[in-house]
């Protein structure tokens, strides 16, 4: 292991390649535009010359003699018949032309000023200013110089030089040839380069005009042989062929003394080919295309953007020891575990070093070969690496002999076995909980299995989601993953300090059904639920009429720590004016005493992901091991319970009696009439204007208000008909899925549809649809939907509803792309920051960013509501409830949980997700 670097990079210098350097590093001069001859051999001095390196196995490089993987390839070069401008340097060329004299080449500033600028630059260098400061000063010089019209040195008059995009310069309308440009740049004396920010020791400005073009090695642009035996060349090769061809024609024409016009045309063409060779997306010129019409991928395109070399090959790579497949749920797994199909487990390996202690075990392991056929899954061995580095593939046939040869110092590659630790990830990886460490469970079939409670942090569902898995290869990595990345260490989120892993959907419903009111289970049901647990004692039963029974609260209490004490309100709490506490009619006041649920209903506020208060307290006070156990237990309990009750919902859950329907109809028609009255009042000019609003706005606001109230009222009427015996209501009230608003839209009325927060108004001339009169401002004409999903919509209403729905879709599409870009920028800026041992936040240069992390040094996932300690909770623990209540009079004992305002923001986020 290398523990420290012995060398440190002091600085990196960037300069241009000079024509001399290009020729010096060239292995061969390329003159022929052809690649291969008829026999399939590369043509000498052609683009595939063997001096440029080898791509075919068996051949040797003519320059260095290396074989395919030994020789990296060598550059060649093309001598250009006429000089050509390099597009990448066009800005610098323009700057130099504008700041220097056309006849003597000096900077267009008096001697004293040049000196001043030079000194300013030297000072920046001395003060240790970075490149940005340096550039800034040099830019200043250029700006000063480019405004001159007379050369202060030779008195020559200067004319204006403009850049004719992308690569030609014009002086007073007359075109400058690259040759002329090069001559001018050659005239600039060395001592005048420094004030312009150029170090003459490393580069001369005329090198920006190419007289020789480097030809990259063939390894950079390998040709592919198709199945048909046909050769297909790389885009770069195609482009170089073009360059060579035109270069040849240009030379011939020039030497033959062809008319100036023809030579110039060919010169232009050569410029075009070289420009597109560097960058095929230069604005102002058409991109060079392949025969099929596809634009060529030239040098810049290889590097740039998401699919470019940097983002897709250097910052991120494809890796070995990884797997990807569809995910599916399995409530019998612990949250810490992940189910891996046998097929994947047999491919993924972990290297194990043979020592004198494990040699015998490993020999047995190798003897099994790569596909042991035992009843249960047992790991086999795929490869054996000998101490001399040779890798031997283990097959069924050679397993036994190889096993014999195994000795200390060998490394074997063992297949996954139960209990191994692996990383599990789902894209987009937006936060650290997107990649967590799981323990392996080998399972049949072909999907990755995971506990449902870890869906929220991954934002996973099972509608075809795929996830990635990575097998750690070193002991250090495994130890680190186990300590830092295990799922149980991420129950509390650093985003808001609450649990992100917890009961969802059916778990909440199951626990709700189990604990709401006085639910009783007979012995069979109780045992059926508890049989899911490995080690659990049947609690003492209660008796009535000689029949033994257990209450749901009793069973739920089995999952709680024995010394847990807390009390709070459940999700179903209606926020009555005076809280009835223990005697709450809705059973919404939760009280836990010594690990027993005395009263109250278990729902989202108790165990739910993001909100569960008991979950939060257990994770904080009892540690991650206990919290994991708790989550695993409630999963089993909830599944057991819901399987006893059975649970289903359908559209007939939204059936409401005819009277209620009539009532809703009355409310809505009244509202519509009211809007009509408002419109009439507006048209008669007697509508009272609201302060700060125009008359039209007043009408809009008023009608929106009326219709909004009507929708709510309809929802209330419908809601009254739907009680807690209704499955949909159970889900909504317990927080398992859906909301009462969803329900009232199904049973009552859909309400006003809006685009950009306003009533619908666009479409046709002065109306939304041709079904209405022009200028109709009434409720129906402006997107009010008075029917429900259950009853079905009018055609016009359906159209309006689609308009509203479309806006939502567009918004999400726009929002995800925008927030993705924001996230990328933010991560690029912050990725190297680290909290050091002394609490300061520093970057890799060890400069201080924050003197104390978050100014208070508190990890939000460890603290409580942003504070390091919860004094109230400690007091409650120490003093007991009664004394505590006296100490803090008036204050409701609601010690645990997330602040109300955080809750609403979390809720909003949840809805977006």
């Amino acid at each position, binding site marked *: 292991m290398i523990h420290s670097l012995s060398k440190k990079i002091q600085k990196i210098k960037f300069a241009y390649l000079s024509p001399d350097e290009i020729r010096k590093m060239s292995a061969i001069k390329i003159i022929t535009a052809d690649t291969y001859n008829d026999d399939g051999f590369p043509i000498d001095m052609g683009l595939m010359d063997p001096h440029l390196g080898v791509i075919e196995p068996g051949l040797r490089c003519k320059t260095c003699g290396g074989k395919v993987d030994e020789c990296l390839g060598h550059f060649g070069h093309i001598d250009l018949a006429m000089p050509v401008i390099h597009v990448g340097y066009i800005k610098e060329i323009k700057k130099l032309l504008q700041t220097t004299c056309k006849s003597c080449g000096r900077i267009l500033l008096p001697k004293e000023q040049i000196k001043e600028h030079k000194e300013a630059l030297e000072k920046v260098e001395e003060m240790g200013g970075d490149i940005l400061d340096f550039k800034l000063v040099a830019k200043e010089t250029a700006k000063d110089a480019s405004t001159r019209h007379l050369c202060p040195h030779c008195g020559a008059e200067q004319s204006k030089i403009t850049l004719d995009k992308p690569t030609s310069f014009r002086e007073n309308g007359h075109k400058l040839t690259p040759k002329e440009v090069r001559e001018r740049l050659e005239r600039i004396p060395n001592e005048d380069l420094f004030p312009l920010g150029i170090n003459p020791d490393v580069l001369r400005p005329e090198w920006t005009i190419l007289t020789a073009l480097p030809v990259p090695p063939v390894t950079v642009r390998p040709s592919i042989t198709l199945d048909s035996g046909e050769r297909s060349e790389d885009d770069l090769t195609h482009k170089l062929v073009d360059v060579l061809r035109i270069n040849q024609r240009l030379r011939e024409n020039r030497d033959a003394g062809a008319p100036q016009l023809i030579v110039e045309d060919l010169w232009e063409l050569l410029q075009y080919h070289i420009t597109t060779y560097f960058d095929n997306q230069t604005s102002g010129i058409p991109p060079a295309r392949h025969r099929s019409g596809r634009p060529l991928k030239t040098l810049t395109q290889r590097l740039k953007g998401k699919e470019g070399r940097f983002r897709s090959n250097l910052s991120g790579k494809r890796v070995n020891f990884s797997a990807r497949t569809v995910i599916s749920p399995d409530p019998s797994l612990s949250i810490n575990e992940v189910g891996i199909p046998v097929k994947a487990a047999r491919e993924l390996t972990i290297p194990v070093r043979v020592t004198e202690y494990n040699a015998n075990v490993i020999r047995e392991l190798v003897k099994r070969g790569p596909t042991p056929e035992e009843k249960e899954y047992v790991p086999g061995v795929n490869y054996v690496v000998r101490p001399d580095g040779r890798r031997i593939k283990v097959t069924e046939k050679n397993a036994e002999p190889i096993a014999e040869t195994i000795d200390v110092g060998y490394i074997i590659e063992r297949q996954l076995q139960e209990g191994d630790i692996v990383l599990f990830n789902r894209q987009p990886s937006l936060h650290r909980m997107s990649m967590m460490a799981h323990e392996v469970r080998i399972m049949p079939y072909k999907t990755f299995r995971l506990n449902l409670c870890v869906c929220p942090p991954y934002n996973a569902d099972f509608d075809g989601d795929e996830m990635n898995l990575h097998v750690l290869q070193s002991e250090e990595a495994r130890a680190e993953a186990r300590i830092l990345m295990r799922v149980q260490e991420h129950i509390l989120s650093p985003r808001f300090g609450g649990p992100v892993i917890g009961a969802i959907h059916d778990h909440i419903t199951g626990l709700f059904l189990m604990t709401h009111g006085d639910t009783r289970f007979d012995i069979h049901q109780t045992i059926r639920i508890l049989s899911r647990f490995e080690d659990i004692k049947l609690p003492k039963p209660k008796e009535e009429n000689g029949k033994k029974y257990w209450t749901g609260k009793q069973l739920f209490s089995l999952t709680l720590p024995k010394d847990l004490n807390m009390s709070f309100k459940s999700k179903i709490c209606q926020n009555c004016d005076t809280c009835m506490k223990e005697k709450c009619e809705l059973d919404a006041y939760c009280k836990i005493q010594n690990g027993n649920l005395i009263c109250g209903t278990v729902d989202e506020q108790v165990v739910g992901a993001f909100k569960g208060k008991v979950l939060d307290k257990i994770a904080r006070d009892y540690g991650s091991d206990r919290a994991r156990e708790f989550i695993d237990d409630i999963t089993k309990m909830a599944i057991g319970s819901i399987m006893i009750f059975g649970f289903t919902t359908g559209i007939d859950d939204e059936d409401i009696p005819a009277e209620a329907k009539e009532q809703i109809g009355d409310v809505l028609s009244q509202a519509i009439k009211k809007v009509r009255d408002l419109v009439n009042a507006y048209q008669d000019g007697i509508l009272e204007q609201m302060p700060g609003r125009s008359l039209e706005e007043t009408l809009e606001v008023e009608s929106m208000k009326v219709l909004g109230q009507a929708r709510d009222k309809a929802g209330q009427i419908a809601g009254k008909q739907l009680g807690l015996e209704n499955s949909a209501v159970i889900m909504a009230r317990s927080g398992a899925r859906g909301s009462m608003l969803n329900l009232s839209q199904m049973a009552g009325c859909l309400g006003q549809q809006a685009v950009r927060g306003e009533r619908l108004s666009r479409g046709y001339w002065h109306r939304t649809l041709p079904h209405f009169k022009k200028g109709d401002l009434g409720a129906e004409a402006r997107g009010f939907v008075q029917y429900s999903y259950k009853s079905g919509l009018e055609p016009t209403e359906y159209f309006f509803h689609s308009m509203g729905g479309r806006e939502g879709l567009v918004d999400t599409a726009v929002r995800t792309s925008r927030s993705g870009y924001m996230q990328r920028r933010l991560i690029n800026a912050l990725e190297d920051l680290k909290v050091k041992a002394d609490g300061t936040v520093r970057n890799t240069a*060890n*400069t*201080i960013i924050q*003197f104390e992390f978050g*100014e*208070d040094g508190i990890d939000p996932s460890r603290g409580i509501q942003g504070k390091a300690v919860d004094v109230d909770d400690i007091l409650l623990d120490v003093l007991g409830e009664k004394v505590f209540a006296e100490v803090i009079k008036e204050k409701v004992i609601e010690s645990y949980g997330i602040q109300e305002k955080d809750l609403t923001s979390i809720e909003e986020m949840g809805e977006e997700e």
Partner: protein
Amino acid sequence: MDKLDVRSNELVPQHIPLSREEEKELLKKLGVRKGQLPKIRKSDPCIKILEQIGEVKEGQIIKIVRNSRTARISTAYRMVIKG
């Protein structure tokens, strides 16, 4: 009219220049060179005023005590640079 002293505004945190000894102590405590501290420009309104009074030179360290949402009061240090 006299120019407004920005320091009198309640939204402007306290800027306290450190003495040589204090600077030394601070740098030792943090284990950093001066250049590794965050910077503040001399053109910063607060530094301008301190400079006029003659309390601040380029390269000096300023202690800034401000109200913090998380920690009530937090201290930061910045080195004065030109600009």
